[in-house]
């Protein structure tokens, strides 16, 4: 599997994400926000956590207009795989590749702790390594992780089995306890929790490892 990790000014989980991809057997290229094309033969693009462009205007809003995001959108529209974690999820909603938006946490505080996540579906390359209903421990670290979508969008997400993960104990006010969602073709994942921070015994937890292993297993480079 060939993965590209996007680096914006202010990204701070880019190297962690690259390490998690590599540990699962992927070849990783880092791509800069000013690049207007992805390297050839990329199977999946990872948009990492952090504070792209200082979170100016709205989290992810400026990043969504960057040259590399046009290339990422083209990749997704061709049926390519994209995963956005934390700030990456915010970027994906701002580009319109995923529905809804991330608002300020209901309690107004930045929250950094490990939370319980329920795997809502195993029907995606990201969640195939889990069984629906599994509860995994994954860290969160965000100020704007309060997922919002209107009722029609929520009904669509539910009817199409596109809620990937939900919180067992909602930390941020997200509607329907949503922690991560999939695109209609199930190839774009956005999630606020950080599976790359639970992918090595040294992290204190390895519940995120199965996500990266399932991904590299499914997207073996031909």
């Amino acid at each position: 599997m060939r993965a590209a990790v996007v680096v914006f000014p202010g990204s701070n989980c880019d190297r962690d994400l690259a390490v998690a991809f590599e540990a699962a057997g992927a070849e990783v290229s880092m791509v800069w926000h000013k690049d207007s094309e992805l390297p050839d033969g990329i199977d999946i693009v990872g948009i990492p956590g952090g504070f792209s462009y200082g979170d100016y205007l709205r989290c992810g809003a400026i990043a969504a207009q960057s040259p590399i995001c046009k290339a990422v959108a083209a990749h997704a529209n061709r049926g390519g795989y994209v995963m956005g974690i934390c700030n990456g999820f915010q970027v994906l909603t701002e580009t319109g590749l995923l529905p809804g938006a991330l608002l300020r946490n209901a309690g107004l505080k930045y929250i950094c702790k490990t939370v319980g996540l329920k795997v809502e579906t195993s029907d995606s390359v990201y969640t195939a390594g889990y069984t629906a209903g599994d509860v995994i421990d994954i860290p969160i670290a965000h100020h704007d992780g309060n997922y919002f979508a209107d009722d029609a969008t929520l009904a669509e997400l539910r009817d199409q089995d596109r809620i990937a993960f939900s919180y067992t104990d909602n930390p941020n006010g997200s509607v329907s306890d949503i922690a991560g969602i999939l695109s209609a073709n199930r190839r774009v994942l956005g999630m606020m929790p950080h599976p790359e921070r639970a992918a090595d015994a040294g992290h204190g937890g390895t519940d995120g490892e199965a996500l990266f292993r399932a991904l590299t297993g499914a997207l073996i480079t031909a």
Partner: protein
Amino acid sequence: MKARVHVMLKTGVLDPQGAAVRHALGAMGFDGVNKVRQGKVIELDLADGTSKADVTEMCEKLLANTVIESYTIEIS
């Protein structure tokens, strides 16, 4: 020409910052405040020939996230 864009969270979208401001005002003794909604104002200094339609496009594409926010434009 100048434009002033007001961006507000849509009705129905929870505004925890506005709620915190209202709570603080209440704690200070200003008990006549039923509700506070917090938004932002963006001032644009525009070159000649930039139209209100251009500013609308800027709002739709960047200045507001229309999933959660509404906007109004004042031209002066």
